[in-house]
């Protein structure tokens, strides 16, 4: 019996190779392949290859099983189509489904979309929405919510308004002999006239210290798409960016939603004036590495949002050193007009550092919120300024998804080209922001609330940790809720900005008028 069990398997290959096979027959029953193995010279090779192959196919099988398992596990939808028999029985499938779910219609959205849907709005968005619905108005709605959560500069609106009144028609109609220029297709990455004008405007703001090259610019429909575009260009799904925290609450949506990129906060502390240190960057970087995340860059905002301090020249150098060492990118989100010239500290743009120093420019990318800088946030124009040709080319093509209306571009071209107006606007705007800042910060001080000293933007970063109980995120959110619902003031709590110390709040005061400041202070006093 033993004999004929093994015979068929053994016979074909080894017979010719060895004459000694007859002796080994005892063992063959147990392992039919042994004959092959022990056969001769080829035996060892076959003996290795066959199990290898088996093992390999096993692995392959496991993998393919796994994958299909993952797919169907992640979103519930696929199960439905799988129920139905592949061949036919159409009517029946439908009826089966309609039994399970009424109306038989559950067309699912993608899993990335359901992530967006499920995501609960954090207090920042809750506050914005609520204050939009019940907006304070001196005459019509004196009991409404005062909006201090939105970084929007209305202080110099009248200047812009006057200009628009005088020039709108001319800038759109008179300039062109025909309408072609405004209604027709135009390059998605922005009109070259506007790029030129913007380059001029930016150099003017920087007082000639930096010259900007219009060919390195792409115009987007706002800051959010500009940042998203860069993240798309620099990182792949699952990569990460380091972002010094506290950071603007908008970044979470801008960066994570569609690109699938992670944010690693680099915590900064009040004891350091919330300034960025290389040590903490290194720590965050190493932590990310440990988690297996690939860090592709650092995103900073200058002046920092929400804190409002400026990055010093030294910090910028350190940042670039760090980026060079790790071979990663730097995205700087800069506001041009916002920062006020200070005796102690001047605004240093990344473009300036890059121009003067021997760093690799290819890793530096700058974002400007153009229309926001000039108090026209509704115009939604952002600028991507990069030194990296690949990024420029790619983002130029991606601009098809976020291009700016030619109408707005035309208006801005003539606005930026009116250099007398621009100079005047910058001067007036700075004065007004400064005065408002003094007034608002002074008001808070009287209430016993201290703000970060270096606040320079159109917002201030206030320390209300003395007023929260318990001293934790919970206490902070309670105070935020009281401010919103009782005092009717919408401020942004630090937890939305991923600040690790509880009790900090961001107040955007540039949408107020001077008259409203005492009212705001009065309302805050009520809840303290």
């Amino acid at each position, binding site marked *: 019996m033993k004999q004929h069990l093994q015979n068929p398997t053994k016979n074909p290959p080894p017979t010719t190779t060895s004459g000694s096979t007859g002796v080994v027959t005892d063992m063959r029953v147990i392992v039919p392949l042994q004959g092959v193995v022990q056969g001769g010279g080829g035996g060892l090779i076959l003996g290795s290859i066959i199990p290898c192959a088996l093992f390999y196919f096993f692995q392959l099988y496991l993998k393919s099983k796994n994958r299909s398992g993952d797919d169907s596990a992640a979103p519930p939808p696929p199960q439905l189509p799988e129920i139905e028999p592949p061949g036919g029985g159409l009517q029946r499938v439908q009826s089966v489904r309609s039994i399970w779910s009424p109306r038989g219609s559950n067309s699912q959205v993608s899993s990335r979309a359901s992530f967006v*849907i499920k995501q609960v709005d954090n207090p920042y968005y809750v506050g914005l929405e609520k204050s939009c619905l019940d907006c304070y108005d001196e005459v019509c709605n004196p009991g409404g919510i005062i909006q201090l959560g939105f970084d929007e500069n209305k202080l110099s609106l009248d200047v812009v308004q006057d200009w628009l009144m005088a020039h709108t028609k001319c800038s759109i109609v008179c300039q062109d002999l025909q309408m072609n220029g405004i209604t027709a297709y135009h390059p998605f990455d922005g009109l070259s006239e506007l790029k030129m004008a913007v380059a001029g405007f930016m150099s003017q703001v920087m007082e000639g210290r930096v010259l900007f090259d219009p060919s390195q610019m792409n115009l987007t429909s706002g800051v959010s798409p500009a940042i998203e575009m860069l993240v798309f260009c620099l990182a792949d799904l699952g990569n990460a960016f380091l972002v010094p925290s506290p950071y603007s609450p908008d970044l979470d949506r801008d960066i994570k939603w569609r690109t699938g990129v992670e944010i690693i906060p680099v915590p900064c502390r009040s004891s350091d004036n919330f300034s960025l240190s290389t040590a903490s960057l290194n720590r965050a970087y190493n932590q990310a590495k440990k988690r297996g995340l690939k860090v592709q860059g650092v995103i900073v905002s200058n002046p920092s949002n929400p804190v409002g301090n400026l990055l010093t020249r030294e910090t910028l150098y350190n940042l670039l050193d760090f980026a060079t060492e790790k071979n990663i990118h730097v995205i700087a989100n800069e506001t041009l007009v916002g920062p006020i010239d200070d005796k102690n500290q001047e605004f240093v743009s990344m473009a300036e550092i890059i121009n003067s120093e021997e760093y690799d420019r290819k890793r530096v990318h700058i974002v400007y919120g153009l229309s926001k800088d000039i108090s026209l946030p509704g115009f939604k124009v952002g600028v991507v300024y990069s030194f990296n040709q690949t990024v420029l080319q790619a983002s130029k093509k991606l601009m098809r998804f976020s291009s700016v209306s030619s109408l707005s571009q035309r208006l801005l071209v003539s606005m930026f080209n009116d250099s007398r107006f621009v100079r005047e606007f910058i001067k007036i705007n700075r004065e007004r922001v400064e005065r408002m800042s003094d007034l608002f910060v002074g008001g808070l001080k009287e209430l016993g609330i201290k703000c970060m000293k270096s606040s320079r933007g159109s917002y201030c970063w206030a320390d209300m940790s003395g007023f929260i109980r318990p001293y934790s995120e919970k206490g902070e959110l309670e105070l935020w809720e009281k401010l919103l619902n009782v005092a009717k003031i919408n401020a942004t709590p630090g937890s939305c900005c991923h600040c690790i110390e509880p009790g900090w709040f961001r107040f955007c005061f540039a949408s107020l008028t001077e008259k409203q400041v005492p009212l705001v202070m009065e309302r805050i006093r009520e809840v303290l």
Partner: protein
Amino acid sequence: MTQTGPRRLRNSALDDDSQPQPQPQPSSSTTGMRLIVPLQGIVQGRGGLILGSVIPCAMFYFLQFYLKRRRSPPASNPPSPGNLTDLSRSASRSNLLLPRGRPHVSSRVSSIAKANDSPYYIGLDKATSDPYDRLCNPGGVVQLGLAENRLTLDLIENWITNNLNESILGGGLSVSGIVTYQPHDGMPELKLAMAGLMSQVVGKTVTFNPSQIVLTSGATPAIEILCFALADQGNTFLIPAPYYPGFDRDMKWRTGVELIPVHCRSSDNFTLSIPVLEQAFNQARKRGQKVKGILLSNPSNPVGNLMTRETLLSLLDFAREKNIHIISDEIFSGSTFGDEEFVSMAEIIDSEDADKDRVHIVYGLSKDLSLPGFRVGVIYSYNENVLTVARKMTRFSSVSAPTQRLVTSMLSDTTFIKSYTERNRERLRTMYDLFVDGLKELGIGCTKSSGGLYCWCDMSGLIRPYNEKGELDLWDKLLNVGKINITPGSSCHCIEPGWFRCCFTTLDENDIPVVMERIRLVVEACKSPA
């Protein structure tokens, strides 16, 4: 073939251990091999077979493991993975090796950044850089590749000139309406006006609900946002081919979604048939791809035909049966000029009461109102989830506020819109007839089309060889010799070679003889050698 002492010793020791085994003979007969493979002694012992399988398996496994580890990081960042683990040293090393330590871009854009190789984009670029002008540049390239309507520019121009200031600045009361932040998904006033326009364009009793409208900066982001909302990376959409070449960018680039062409043929007049759709769907399923929906353009771009009510109904059935979505791109719905009536997906959905939430309509002002520069696109969906996501995603593609203002008042001016649409259709009709007749005289036939700003013409008689290469040769000749840019069918993924899309709305009536003359030169050159 010398045998070393120790080895022989070990072998004999092994043989001793495995007494009961009848090994001696085979071992002696194979000793010659041992030098080459030291493991053989073990293999041939009793546990030999097991070890003999385990060891190579393990080695193979580690090899695979090693390969995998080596492969994955460089995919996105080739030179640095070694450096990143070791921090301080890496800096100095990377500085030594590559003095600047080149920063890497993401792998998804490296393909995007590459130069255009599709003839569609090459032609567009060329025609943009050297545009034909009757007076200034009579030797330039005539642009027939861009679906842009310039026939009615004068009407728009008049309106804007007359109403500019009031519409943007709202009669001078306040600019805060245009300069402050607006909801990203569009002002309610504009949505209302847009709903009105859409019903008027459809020309029926279909009403559009403003709350189901999301405004985006053009139809391109509208399609991309829908794609983001409906499909995940690696999912697919079925799309009747030939299709608009831009979809390859809109749908695929950032979303990672794939398009599966469903080929329509000239014998069916390029209409979509359900069996073909079914076949494509099943093939995709077989390949393990997950189909999330169908992307239609109605009126079809590039063919210009309309979908019949029956087709739409059966499409809806198909989608319901497979539980997939339908995106209906109706951006040319107001630019119909034929006798056939245009049936919107919205109309079908209105009459059928079930299953609305799998239908999404894309619309825009770029074609029907010839305002492509304004970048106004519309997502109209019946699915609350999709609307929520789309509203949130418009933060990346919102419409500029002054534009919204201007467009709102333009659309609210119903008498203007009405007369505009009528005159636009008339002019399209005239131009279409002129152009198609001109081509007919040259012996080039077109499919019968009733909408769109283009015609789909059959030049298969002129290409040699009869394949894509021949088609591209002809395209090249037309572009470089004839100085005419048209879109070859291969860019539209048409499976039959020799078809071309010509957009005639960028022309002036007086330009038509010039265009025909240029085409004739190329046609004759093609025919003469034969």
